[in-house]
């Protein structure tokens, strides 16, 4: 470092003195990914817990959906090949999915709030890989969604589902994957958004169809051709498949089924794609144009 005197001289000089030696940047340790990501995720969850109305709201809505729709549809629910299944039972994985989907995506509204309030810029100038910022936010949002949906999972023993322990393990895995996929999707969409109300509008026209066409509300068998194509392309439908199947089969049986494996591959690919999309959006800097 220069002394004040040489610094003053440097100010006097009219020529450009290029620094002869670059400062060591703390000899650049290997990019730390998980530490910063974990710290950001923990912050996300702490914030959530400290806002009780968020907890109550996100728990209450799917529960009401489930109880009202379940009770109302059960008398008329007679799909072919599903005799003996109540609508409460059919709808249960769909409610789980709804909870994960909505809680995940809406947890990413905090991206817009963070940007608004200035927290985000502090994170962006920190020496962390951009992917760590994405992972932290996505893992934080996912943990909020999973916290709520795990509470709903406590209802399983009372539903009379033929579920095994290994099956539950697969259900949990599917829930984690879904949460990551949805949160990453919400993150990528929220990243450039200026207002939370705009985000709400976009997400409602975008989210509702994804969920409605997932098979959460009605079985996919016997729907019109166009609808069946739309459902086959919908990642939420595949996520629902891998959540629902293990309730009725143990892990070995599920993992041996080509339909299950296809859906699993689609969901994994979709999570990876969304995370990559997020990272590329975060890495982009506002570039000035030639003018």
């Amino acid at each position, binding site marked *: *470092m*220069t*002394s*004040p005197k*040489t*610094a*003053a001289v*440097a*100010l*006097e000089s*009219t020529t*450009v*003195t*290029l*620094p*002869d*030696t*670059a*400062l060591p*940047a*703390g000899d*650049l*340790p290997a*990019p*730390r990914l998980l*530490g*910063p990501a*974990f*710290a*950001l995720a923990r*912050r996300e969850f*702490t*914030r959530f817990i*400290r*806002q009780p109305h968020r907890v109550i709201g996100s728990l209450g809505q799917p529960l009401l959906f489930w109880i009202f729709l379940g009770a109302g549809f059960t008398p008329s629910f007679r799909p072919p090949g599903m005799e003996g299944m109540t609508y409460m039972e059919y709808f249960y994985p769909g409610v789980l999915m709804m909870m994960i989907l909505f809680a995940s995506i809406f947890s990413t509204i905090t991206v817009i709030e963070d940007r608004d*309030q*200035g*927290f*985000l*810029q*502090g*994170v*962006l*100038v*920190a*020496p*962390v890989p951009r992917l760590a910022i994405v992972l932290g936010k996505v893992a934080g949002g996912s943990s909020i969604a999973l916290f709520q949906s795990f509470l709903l999972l406590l209802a399983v023993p009372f539903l009379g589902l033929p579920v095994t322990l290994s099956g539950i393990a697969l259900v949990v895995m599917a829930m984690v994957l879904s949460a990551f996929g949805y949160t990453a999707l919400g993150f990528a969409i929220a990243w450039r958004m200026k207002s939370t109300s705009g985000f709400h509008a976009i997400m409602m026209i975008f989210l509702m169809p994804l969920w409605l066409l997932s098979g959460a509300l009605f079985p996919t068998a016997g729907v019109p051709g166009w609808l069946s194509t739309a459902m086959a392309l919908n990642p939420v439908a595949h996520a629902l498949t891998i959540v629902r199947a293990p309730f009725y089969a143990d892990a070995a049986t599920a993992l041996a089924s080509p339909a299950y494996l296809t859906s699993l591959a689609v969901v994994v690919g979709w999570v990876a794609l969304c995370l990559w999309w997020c990272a590329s959006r975060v890495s982009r*800097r*506002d*570039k*000035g*144009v*030639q*003018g």
Partner: protein
Amino acid sequence: MHMILIRNLRHTYPGTRRQSARNALRDLSLEIPAGQFCILSGPNGSGKSTLFRILCGLAAPSSGSVSIGGHDLATAPERIRPLMGVVFQSPAVDKNLSVQENLTLHADLHGLRGTAAGRMTEALAWSDLKDRLGDRVETLSGGLARQVELAKCLMTRPQILLLDEPTTGLDPASRRSFILALRRLQRDRKMTVLMTSHVFSDAEFADSVAILRDGALMAHDTPDRLKAMVGTEMVVIRPRDPAAFATVLETGFSRRPVRYGDELRIENIPPAEAVPLIAAVLDHHRADVLSIGVKQPDLEDVFVHVTGRGAAFAADAEPSDSRARQPELTA
């Protein structure tokens, strides 16, 4: 050695359907030697914020280069980030977390695991936060919340500190204590500080002040030499009708005033002439004058002088050393 070296920086915001492209920075060059406290000033829209966003790596310029600590900002931002602490205008702390939680989060982001406790004590030593560690930031006063920002940045022992209007919203006492603490820390730790500010009392403490207007550097010098540019004394008049009175001064008194808002200023008056001039003006035009006085220039006057008539200033820039340092001014 120059800690921050900005060469021919240009930044143009892309136009939208409703708005044409806007030049925020035009060929800006600026050097800040290591260990200096530099204040960046300028009217709203002068390009300060754009420059700040570029320096902290949030925006990429249209052209030109920035080197910080010898690293090129465009190609090696990951080498610069560890050297740098940034205090933003809008608070970059989480209001729902406590002071301690915010500092821990920052330490984790910078990979300070293990050393965090010691660093935290060190970063808080100068502050008034020691009894408030468990309190949520939303419960702190504005001044204390600003201290959290600064303490947070100090934890990583930055060599360069960038601050964007850090004293905005603080009362004069808190502002003064913030600046004094900052100045002391900067000297003790030999940091290079670049701070944007609107507040001229802030600038009195700086090693150098850079004044921006319309995306170009108008002046960059020590506070004393900047003040010398305006002369030793000036007469400030508030007439009822500034435009008409300017003509009166030019024709009747052969003085060319500078208009700034409702004020007319006759700058660089030799000390012996100020009082006789005031007496003469009052003798003949008492009814047209709301107030009149003599004034020692402070940095605000420099600012008015430099930004109020930048073109004229460029043409008759008096101090030769100032002209030499900013060759782009004479263009």
